[in-house]
């Protein structure tokens, strides 16, 4: 149950990237989670809902791309999908296999918007509260 830390990392990376683009807010964050990690999606959603208010990602959707587990047999090179148990080559029954997918935990992309969440009819395209987040993430461009 370390989903709070995971969401904090997701938000840091997203806010940094969105700020560099001069975005007002983030509308969607896309991540990939491998089947063999210890991430629980309900805990991730809960942490995301709890931690996004007051940030550029307030109201954003968290989209999770689930990645199944697959391996390659070291002896006969066959690639196959599997669950957590019985990772055995379907062709030669060998058990020396290299994991190809299943341990992913990555932030893929974000959708940004130039208009703040509570866009007021008044002038100015400066962000308001979000500015504080942008400050911490701004600085060196590359």
């Amino acid at each position: 149950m370390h989903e709070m830390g995971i969401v904090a990392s997701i938000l840091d990376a997203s806010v940094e990237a969105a700020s560099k683009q001069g975005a007002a807010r983030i509308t969607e964050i896309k991540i990939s989670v491998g089947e063999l990690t210890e991430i629980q999606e309900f805990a991730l959603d809960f942490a995301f809902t709890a931690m996004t208010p007051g940030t550029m990602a307030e109201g954003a959707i968290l989209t999770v791309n689930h990645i199944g587990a697959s391996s390659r047999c070291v002896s006969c090179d066959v690639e196959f999908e599997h669950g957590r148990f019985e990772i055995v080559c379907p062709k030669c029954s060998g058990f020396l296999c290299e994991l190809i997918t299943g341990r992913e935990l990555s932030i893929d992309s974000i959708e940004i918007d130039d208009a703040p969440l509570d866009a007021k009819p008044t002038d100015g395209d400066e962000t308001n509260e979000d500015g504080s987040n942008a400050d911490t993430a701004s600085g060196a461009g590359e």
Partner: protein
Amino acid sequence: MEIDISKPILDRNERLASENRALFDANDVFVLDLMASPGAGKTSTILATIAALRDRYNIAVIEGDIASRVDAEKISAHGIPAVQINTGGACHLESDMIKRAINALDLASLDIIIIENVGNLVCPTDFYLGEDAKVMILSIPEGHDKPYKYPNIFAIAEAVILNKYDTLSVFDFDEPEFRQVVHSLNPTAPVFPVSATKGDGIDAWAQWLIARIESAKAARSLSKGSDVS
């Protein structure tokens, strides 16, 4: 507008772990991350391992706990440098905690660091600390069904220590079934039955560890050799 990010969520942890790893490599220190539930016998197993290896290697221990210095004091009492990390509630160690802990150690004088992770069968598995190997301990009273319930830790461990083996006769622990499930999750991991407080079985575990340490050191000196040329 979509912006591509494409980076690991635990990017910062991975980066700091690589920095730790570079320090360990530069000082030729082998690092073991030992994971288990609370009460499985991590500290006792570390003490038994130290007793088996201390004539051969200079060892230090990094103790991870939510609170207290109890474990570090137990290790220090045996004349082994020990650094206590208190995670203050966090359920696992992360690489920045290790980074701070190794500042308190004289890496140049060490051959091995044993990291005792926070007692937990879930969270430590997702965090690389810069170690050479992750090993886990299950104790007999916890039951043979644990690999079904916590498969990931059994899948990523290079070896499984089965502690409190001297209590096998009083618990309903099906050892053949346990070994079969561990094998299905992790076919190459050896299982070492030990009774850490009595020292039984420690020899086989220690021999495996020595072989693992020596192969890591050999690989390190090979890569250093190729760097120079």
